[in-house]
């Protein structure tokens, strides 16, 4: 465990970048430092590997004061990833990744074999091994940065806005990849970002910092969204905090209607039987059960259902796997106001109205409140548990 104990950093010009910060960074999880520009995130991160030395306070790693270890040994036990990757432009990709193992005295072949392994792990084609950094895209360079940091299998990974210089789609890919790698390797990761969405997506614990280097709140993301400590945190979380919070509510409990679903080859009797009045529309599926679109029961003639007659059903959500946020999003985007739920194979599992989703949300809130009343601590642990669902759900998007 990394323990930051009332640490202050005052730069020579008098700037107080970090002010009596105390944090306990749990092992084998992602702790995110988030906050506005200049609030001392980078300074905090760099104090952990001693690129910046604290003015006051102590930082311990597994109980040992980091000032008591040789600085370069400490640094080689911590991977470090930065914005724009900071690759060595004069070395090939494979040699970039092999840097730390080589410094640790590994033989050339062993280090390169290890580097090759890591390229695969971070999703880089082995054909890129002999290239130089300028021949890679920004997203690929960032992957190399991550691979290089992981090369000597350090227990700790420090990441300073590693994904902020790439476009949103690439960033999402890199985030998903990081979560996957973390699941496999279980590193202790300290991740700096100024993007609250990234913090909520990646963090097991999130530390919100405010200008002047103060800690505003340290909590799991679900708790942060439910219970911001003060107006600053609430403001920082943004106006759609309520919607974002829905990511942490599973859609498993939603009551799905299966009655208003007909196959494209349905007979007149089947159509009539399905038009029970539970829903104003019928969902038409293909012969495999995959949703095609919506239609009013009166518009459907047996044997003559054509796709171009149907109202598009938009993106469905995966029942049980995705969150209430995804379900609500589908319902809001659907022209009929009804969301389509599918199973893992993409076959229609049921339909659900905005109203039903709204009731489920109210129910989930009430449940959380009741939990919170009986045991405040438990709430945070619960949300940590449900966090897994949240991330896989978001990964599935």
């Amino acid at each position, binding site marked *: 465990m990394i323990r930051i104990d009332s640490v202050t950093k005052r730069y020579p010009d008098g700037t107080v970048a970090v002010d009596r910060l105390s944090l306990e960074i749990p092992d084998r999880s992602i702790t995110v430092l988030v906050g506005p520009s200049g609030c001392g995130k980078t300074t905090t991160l760099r104090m952990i590997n001693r*690129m910046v030395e604290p003015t006051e306070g102590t930082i311990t790693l597994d109980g040992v004061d980091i000032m008591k270890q040789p600085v370069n040994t400490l*640094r080689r036990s*911590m991977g470090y990833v930065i914005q724009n*990757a*900071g690759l060595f432009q004069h070395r090939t990709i494979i040699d970039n990744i092999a*840097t730390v193992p080589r*410094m640790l005295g590994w033989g050339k072949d062993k280090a390169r074999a290890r580097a090759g392994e890591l390229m695969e792990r971070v999703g880089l084609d082995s054909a890129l091994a002999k290239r*130089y950094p300028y021949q890679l895209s920004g997203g690929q360079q960032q992957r190399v940065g991550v691979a290089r940091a992981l090369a000597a299998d350090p227990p700790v990974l420090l990441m300073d806005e590693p994904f902020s210089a790439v476009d949103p789609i690439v960033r999402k890919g890199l985030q998903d990849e990081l979560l996957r790698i973390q699941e496999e390797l279980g590193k202790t990761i300290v991740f700096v970002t100024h993007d609250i969405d990234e913090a909520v997506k990646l963090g097991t614990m999130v530390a919100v910092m405010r200008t002047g280097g103060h800690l505003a709140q340290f909590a799991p993301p679900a708790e942060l969204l439910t219970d911001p400590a003060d107006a600053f945190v609430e403001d920082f979380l943004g106006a759609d905090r309520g919607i974002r919070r829905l990511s942490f509510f599973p859609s498993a409990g939603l009551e799905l209607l299966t009655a208003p679903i007909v196959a494209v080859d349905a007979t007149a009797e089947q159509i009539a039987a399905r038009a029970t009045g539970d829903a104003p529309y019928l969902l038409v599926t293909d012969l495999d059960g995959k949703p095609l679109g919506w239609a009013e029961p009166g518009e459907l003639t047996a044997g003559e259902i054509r796709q171009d007659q149907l109202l598009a059903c938009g993106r469905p959500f995966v029942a049980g796997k995705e969150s209430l946020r995804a379900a609500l999003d589908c319902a809001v985007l659907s022209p009929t106001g009804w969301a389509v739920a599918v199973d893992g194979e993409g076959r229609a599992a049921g339909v659900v109205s905005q109203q039903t989703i709204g009731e489920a949300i109210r129910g989930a809130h009430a449940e959380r409140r009741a939990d919170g009343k009986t045991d405040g601590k438990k709430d945070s642990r619960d949300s940590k548990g449900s966090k897994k669902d949240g991330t896989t759900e978001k990964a599935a998007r």
Partner: protein
Amino acid sequence: MSELFDMPSDLQHSYLGLVMLHLREALLPVLFGLLVALPLAQLCVRLRWLYPPVLWITTVLYAIPSLAFFVILIDYTGQSELTVMIPLGVYSLVVLVPAIVDAVRSVPQETLAAATAMGFGPVRRYVQVQLPIAAPAIIAGLRVASVSSISLVSVGMLIGNQGALGNLLNSGMIYNQERLIWLSVVGTAVLAILVDAALIGVRILLTPWMPRGTRKNTPTLTAKAAAR
């Protein structure tokens, strides 16, 4: 044919001998300048306040005419090659120091931070990261310094027989022989072009990692591509 390259006996060298002397007198000072400039530049990068005075001193030294250097040096080093080479070495600093300082400073901050974070000590970081990345800009400085040194060697004729191709030019004028003048001028120019080309070659060998756009027109690369 051999008559074309016949030299007046007072020059004490064959044409090839003069060329080799010229090359030595021009390039040894640049090499010496590089050896001085590298640590000096690193010092200027580390201690920012040192850079302006160092730059100022190299500029003032460059402004001193070589004749003045010769007058002072001749008491110590006599009419030797060394007397010619010392001022040339000093002159090369005016190009090399700023070239190296700029080159080292232009290494991206992230790269340096990444190196430090990986546990590079200062010396290892300088040798394995800063210097290789700065190499192309340093070589660009060396090209300017070498070519200017090649043209400056000729002033060595002021202290007797140390001007190499410069002395040949002088003889040409004294004996009123156009052939010698041409041999001197063309020889100097060809030498400068060849040395420049050699340095470009060195840079290409040292920097396979540079984006192609910046070295598109080099014959070596086209040849390599053709060989594939």
